[in-house]
């Protein structure tokens, strides 16, 4: 193949892209949709449920203060500390629950695997930035809140290329 034909072919291949749709996620306006409500774990079967490993969610009425999540995280990122909670829960004699420092967390989800009482799950919320380091520390009360997520963009494939539609 001659040099000239090669260069023309290369240009031609680039020009064809003018007809293709743009494959860009315009992030703050559009958000990617994930499967499910976040990564969860079923301790009876020992298998997780697929989902995004985002911010955690703590169910106060299940947490027994057993610290297994904190022990698991000690070997990973030391992000979990156990803190006192003001409310009395009958399953939680010591009234301690995990507090997670997202400045350290690596979102591995091994704490979710460690919790035997269906108390700790992960959610689809990944927008956790904060102006201060303290703002990244989520107390048990903050972890209790179910995040509001408006994620609906999915990859669509058509004859004119892939898009985030």
């Amino acid at each position: 193949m001659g040099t000239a034909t090669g260069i023309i072919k290369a240009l031609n291949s680039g020009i064809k892209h003018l007809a293709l749709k743009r494959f860009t996620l315009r992030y703050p306006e559009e958000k990617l949709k994930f499967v499910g409500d976040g990564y969860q774990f079923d301790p009876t079967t020992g298998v997780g449920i697929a989902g995004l490993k985002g911010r955690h969610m703590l169910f106060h009425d299940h947490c027994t203060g057993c610290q297994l999540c904190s022990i698991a995280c000690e070997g990973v990122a030391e992000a979990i500390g156990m803190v006192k909670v003001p409310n009395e829960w009958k399953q939680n004699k010591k009234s301690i629950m995990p507090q997670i420092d997202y400045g350290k967390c690596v979102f591995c989800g091994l704490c979710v695997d460690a919790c035997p009482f269906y108390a700790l799950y992960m959610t689809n919320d990944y927008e956790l930035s904060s102006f201060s380091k303290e703002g990244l520390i989520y107390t048990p009360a903050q972890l209790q809140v179910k995040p509001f997520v408006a994620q609906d963009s999915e990859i669509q494939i058509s004859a004119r290329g892939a898009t985030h539609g």
Partner: protein
Amino acid sequence: MSTPILPPGLAIQKADERIMTLNVGPQHPGSGHMRIIVQIDGDYIVACDPDPGYVHRGEEKMAEYRNYVLNVPHLERPVIHDSCNVLYPYVLGVEELLGLEVTERAKYIRVIAAELNRCVYTMYWLAIYGIFLGHSTMFMWPAGDRELLIDLLEKMTGARVTHSYFIPGGIRNDLPANFEDVCLRQVNYFEKRIKEYADVFYENPILISRTEKTGVLTRENAIRLGTTGSVLRASGVDYDVRKKEPYDVYDELDFETNVMKSGDSYARSRIPWLDMMESCRIIRDALQKMPKSGSVRVKLKPNPKGGFDSVYKRVESGRGALGCYIVSDKKPEPYRVKLSVPSFRNLIALPHLLIGEKLGNMPSTYWSLNYWPVEADR
């Protein structure tokens, strides 16, 4: 007073009229911190000394203080774009040490995840290779098309790059509903896209004249220096761990290895691209042969212990054969974990390739070795 002995490159050298010493890096000779000390005579390189070690993280030592499961998140950090493959030999080794029997479905899903990850890594590598040659289209296209596979991995594992998906005893979670269809659709489109790279990049006469016959590694040298992966296959040695020592279910899948004879930068950059098409083939085949339901993870006791034993396991990563040697001494933590990484072995070839080359060919030759600084330093 005796002069202190300084590391190479820091020592003050006597100025020579012709030879000039250039420090390329450690800030940015490519991706990650790494320095290449080159001596040039005019435009030609007369000596070259790669100097890795700037991003040493102590992964191997860290592994001695964590139990077999908690080692998973940090052992995939050396190459976050290829995190499934970096973890693979460790997981296979621990399974042998603890005597775990992995289910068939988990093995297939692991192969699919590993192949998707290999493509994600190669696309990232290709994007940087493109920008090294000043071909910014080849930066944009792979960086964009990589999103198709990252999306699949995200659906599968819940994370975009550091998946922590493989675990001794199988995988962390089963596939989401409807995954097979989405995977097939996106992998097919991905394959169609990478085939379009031929015209604009791989068969572009400008690229060919830039990279052909530069940095030639002969077959004998490739074997003698112990290179691996795409570098070895580009020099005409048909060696792929997936074929030679099949692990998990690679022996049941249908794929070829790609070999080229010329051993130059062009061949080394073309082999990973051809390998990506084989990966698409493997993924399609595995999706078809995979058992449609079944358990994916063996339940582990808390703090599992092995006996007095050691294992060595190898897998084919995006860069070549990646080995992991684990010694257990009846404790929950491994006694020793040693990673034998392909990046370091490929880097050894660099001084042999660059002597006599023009300085302008240094970036493409360096990056065609499929070298990842963080992995080499561990």
